[in-house]
């Protein structure tokens, strides 16, 4: 089985869960004997090359030969193609525009023709003036890649809406079946105020696909009910998690109090408000607990004001945006981790907390709730239940110990290998089906 995959970022250049998921998935597929040609916008040249063959293509007509380093037989299974583009995951058209303006200000020449389909792709420093243009341009390149690699893959797999046009283009050129992967829907990102262009691309991608993979049943239901995709085409493929072999030593604790942590973007989707209200309730009962909100986002100032108004600011701390080692440190300093998301297609951070032996409370409205037994699950809006759960986990050590021990066991068994095996059977099925068409 050979897959042409339109994915995102590879370690060490990871901006979020999407890149992490792509990485884990690709490794899992390789271990299951699946060949992956992995195509990403913008590579940096120092990616983890043990499992991939990096092929840099700064323009498509010169796809470089594979740089093989045969230390591992899995290495042969993945090649890696870099398409020069300034697309990044999680970007909205509005954000792209503001980034683009910044790009213009820094003095770099920007490619500005509106008819991107007609452009020849000489890429260096030339990017689409708006995100939609860039998505279209990326698709043109994808078609060329698919043509160049003709006969070298059996199925196409596209992650996240930005690459759906690329997936469709590759399918048209090669006639191979297409899988699109829904890591998040526009409804998760924007609530009810969906961007209609993004919504349209998502829908087009899913309609054109032979199979839609959703990261949770929650997402699968949205795909079926809100996008009108035929249910038989949509399968749930839960994410797994891959941890670094080495756990760094736990940092020394500065305070004796119990610490309850929220870690993530401070945006409506993540439910920071409910965390604050529950914190105020807990603090009325228990004095020796502190709350930490780690992250930044458009609701941060609102949350700070609310904390001040509730009069709990000496027990509720903000760390700002955390990077790398600090994230890890924060998990290790925590006694309870809370993810009260209003809407979360999957949500990988509770798994990272569990890996650090931290009991977690997650909202029932998160996809990860479907795969976890040893996590306290509450409705995001049920502040009383959330406060109850926090109180229980810090006051009753037996409960916390049970959750952290069993949780670690549970999370250790969520392996990409198993997920990839499931994906492989799906690939095989649709390849078979497309042959019979």
């Amino acid at each position, binding site marked *: 089985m050979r897959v042409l995959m339109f994915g995102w970022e590879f370690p060490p250049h990871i901006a979020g869960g999407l890149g992490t998921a792509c990485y884990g998935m690709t490794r899992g597929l390789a271990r299951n004997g699946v060949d992956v040609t992995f195509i990403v916008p913008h590579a940096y040249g120092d990616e983890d090359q043990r499992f991939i063959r990096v092929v840099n293509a700064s323009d498509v007509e010169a796809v470089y030969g594979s740089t093989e380093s045969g230390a591992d037989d899995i290495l042969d299974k993945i090649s890696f193609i870099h398409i020069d583009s300034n697309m990044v995951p999680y970007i909205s058209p509005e954000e792209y525009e503001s980034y683009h303006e910044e790009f213009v200000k820094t003095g770099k020449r920007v490619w500005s023709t509106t008819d991107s389909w007609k452009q020849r792709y000489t890429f260096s420093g030339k990017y689409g003036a708006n995100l939609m243009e860039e998505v279209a341009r990326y698709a043109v390149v994808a078609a060329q890649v698919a043509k160049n690699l003709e006969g070298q893959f059996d199925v196409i797999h596209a992650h996240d809406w930005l690459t759906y046009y690329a997936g469709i283009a590759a399918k048209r050129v090669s006639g191979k079946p297409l899988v699109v992967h829904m890591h998040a829907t526009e409804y998760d990102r924007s609530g009810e105020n969906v961007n209609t262009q993004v919504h349209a691309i998502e829908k087009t991608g899913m309609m054109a696909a032979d199979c839609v993979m959703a990261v949770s049943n929650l997402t699968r239901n949205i795909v079926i009910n809100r996008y009108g995709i035929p249910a038989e085409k949509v399968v749930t493929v839960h994410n797994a998690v891959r941890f670094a072999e080495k756990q760094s030593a736990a940092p020394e604790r*500065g305070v004796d109090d119990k610490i309850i942590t929220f870690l993530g973007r401070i945006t409506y989707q993540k439910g920071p408000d409910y965390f604050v209200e529950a914190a105020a309730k807990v603090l009325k009962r228990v004095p020796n607990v502190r709350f930490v909100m780690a992250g930044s986002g458009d609701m941060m100032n609102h949350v700070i004001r609310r904390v*001040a*108004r509730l*009069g709990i600011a000496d027990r509720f*701390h*903000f760390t700002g945006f955390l990077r790398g080692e600090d994230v890890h440190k924060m998990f290790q300093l925590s006694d309870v981790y809370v993810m009260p998301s209003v809407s979360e297609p999957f949500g990988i951070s509770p798994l990272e907390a569990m890996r650090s032996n931290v009991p977690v409370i997650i909202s029932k409205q998160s996809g990860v709730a479907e795969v976890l037994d040893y996590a306290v699950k509450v409705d995001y809006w049920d502040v009383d239940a959330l406060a109850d759960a926090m109180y229980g986990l810090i006051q009753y050590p037996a409960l916390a110990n049970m959750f952290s021990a069993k949780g670690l066991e549970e999370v250790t068994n969520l392996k990409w290998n198993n997920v990839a095996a499931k994906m492989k059977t799906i690939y095989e099925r649709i390849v078979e089906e497309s042959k019979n068409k």
Partner: protein
Amino acid sequence: MKTVCLYFQVHQPWRLKKYRFFNMGKDHNYLDDLSNRSIMQKVARQCYLPMNALLLKLIQENKGKFRCSFSITGIAVEQFKAYCPEVLDSFKALAATGCVEFLGETYSHSLAALASKEDFTEQVKLHTAMIKKEFGQKPTAFRNTELIYSDEIGAMVSELGFKTMLAEGARHILGWKSPNYVYANAIDQKMRLLLRNYKLSDDIAFRFSNQGWDEYPLTADKYVSWLASEETPGEVVNLFMDYETFGEHQGAETGIFDFMKALPKVALGAGVEFATVSEAAKKFQPVSVLHCPHVMSWADEERDITAWLGNELQNEAFSKLYAMKEKIAKLKSADFDYVWNFLQTSDHFYYMATKWLSDGDVHSYFNPYDSAYDAFINYMNVLSDFQIEVEKALEAKAAARKRTKKA
């Protein structure tokens, strides 16, 4: 015959360093030593040292006819001692001339008057002791932080033994009345009030170097003609301003030092006299009581206290801070008092202001933080760690007492 009362405010806060959640419980040095040192030494070089030398020269030249008043916060004196003791010496030299009066105020440039009488009394006594020790004067006139004043605060200051107090000549309090007379406190009429003439004060402090101002450039002759003219009625013109006006807010290149150098001679020649705060208050009878039921200050267009206690962030930090006072008092520890004092400084609350509309320029000029929210988070992190340390120290003290009892 008109009298001019010149009064200068000297203050520098102890600035807090970037103090993160991860520092809590481990790191108890809260101060940004580098910026405190560099700012203090810069201001000393550009303002305190040259201006003190100039004033000393003017006092000597005019043989006692040129007089002025200062208030210096305890926090500023702590920093003189740490970073530039020569500044403290030059203030002592001014004190020794007998032509310079040092006023009482809060030790920390704090908002204690708005917290409680006990907090306020403690702060004032601490400051009085410091002034006595450093400058050999016992203050009899008082100026509260940022000229924060109300009838009740005035009465409270009177109870503490002060005879004169400064306040803002705010339009909403004075109405048709002129600030250029002595007034009396509405509750305790023995307490005399000098009101800042904000127009003439700000001509020097804010507008001096403004080339868009229709009176630019301001010369000593022109300024004295305003002071002496019929347009400025009354007996005493009170020019109150930040001392950092000279050489810092108005740089040396604007000619501010030349202006001050020329001012006394021109003024005395035109029959304008100089007096310190207490002298001016004694020289004239109060013309009326001044009713000020609500708290006012010299800040911003509104002349109120919303720059320090105007939003929920500031109120929260303020109430959490002063909730600690009994525990601090119990500890009786110089180390804890030191931190307790610098955490009270009003500047920390000023950084948390979110009223940026009319006076945003002035606010951002003085603010080391990117936003009010950053300032709040940093302050609360420091305060939270301080709370933990206080609790620990109290426990240790109680344990020690138990041990001695047993023995």
